[in-house]
């Protein structure tokens, strides 16, 4: 791999890392707000999502260091915090809606550069983000169909 390709891939990995660090914080705060409100099964799910993002961040950090780059732990995108269950789900969906195209674009660059290690790593993260996006769209659909009150009433017990 050329030096130019390597530094471009490090730059893309750092952008993915910024998104992962933002997601850790946003999902963790949303999880704790949902716990505070008493929606315990939603708290458990969103908490697990935050931890998943931390595992993704670790994979990206390890890869940047392997490529002799420096992981940027300083930068965050805007953390979007909802004031209702629907706003929380919509804010998290908006984060995933930005993450998925970013990952697909980075995967294309890795394939072009012949960096299959980074490509495989990003593909694993991509599948996980798509699963989370699918869950979020389902929840927003349910809220739409049942109303937020009826949806919320189904989520006060631990899962």
């Amino acid at each position, binding site marked *: 791999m050329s030096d130019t390709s390597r530094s471009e891939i490090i730059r893309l990995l750092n952008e993915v890392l910024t998104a992962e660090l933002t997601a850790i914080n946003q999902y963790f705060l949303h999880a704790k707000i949902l716990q505070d409100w008493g929606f315990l099964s939603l708290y458990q799910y969103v908490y697990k999502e935050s931890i998943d993002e931390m595992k993704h961040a670790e994979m990206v950090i390890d890869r940047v260091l392997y490529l002799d780059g420096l992981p940027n732990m300083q930068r965050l*995108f805007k953390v979007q915090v909802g004031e209702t269950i629907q706003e929380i789900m919509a804010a998290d969906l908006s984060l995933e809606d930005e993450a998925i195209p970013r990952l697909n674009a980075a995967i294309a660059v890795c394939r072009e550069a012949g960096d299959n290690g980074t490509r495989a790593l990003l593909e694993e993260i991509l599948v996980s983000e798509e699963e989370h996006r699918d869950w979020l769209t389902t929840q927003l659909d349910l809220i739409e169909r049942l109303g937020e009150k009826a949806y919320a009433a189904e989520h006060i017990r631990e899962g």
Partner: protein
Amino acid sequence: MIVCLCRAVREHDVARAIAEGASTVRALGERTGAGTDCGACACELRSALTARGLVSVPQDDAPCSGSRPMVTGVAAK
């Protein structure tokens, strides 16, 4: 939604400040505190203004680029 996490400013606080006459990002910061710490919500403040037809933005107003600005640790001055 919470617009500014640093100063705990909600959408309705911003709406009220605009109703009371704030017409720039800077004026919103002075009235509510929003955007005066890390500056990451400058774009959202700008959007709240443009959504109400307050599009005139003075040259020296707080900077805003892209829909999801990065927090670099430099406060919007």
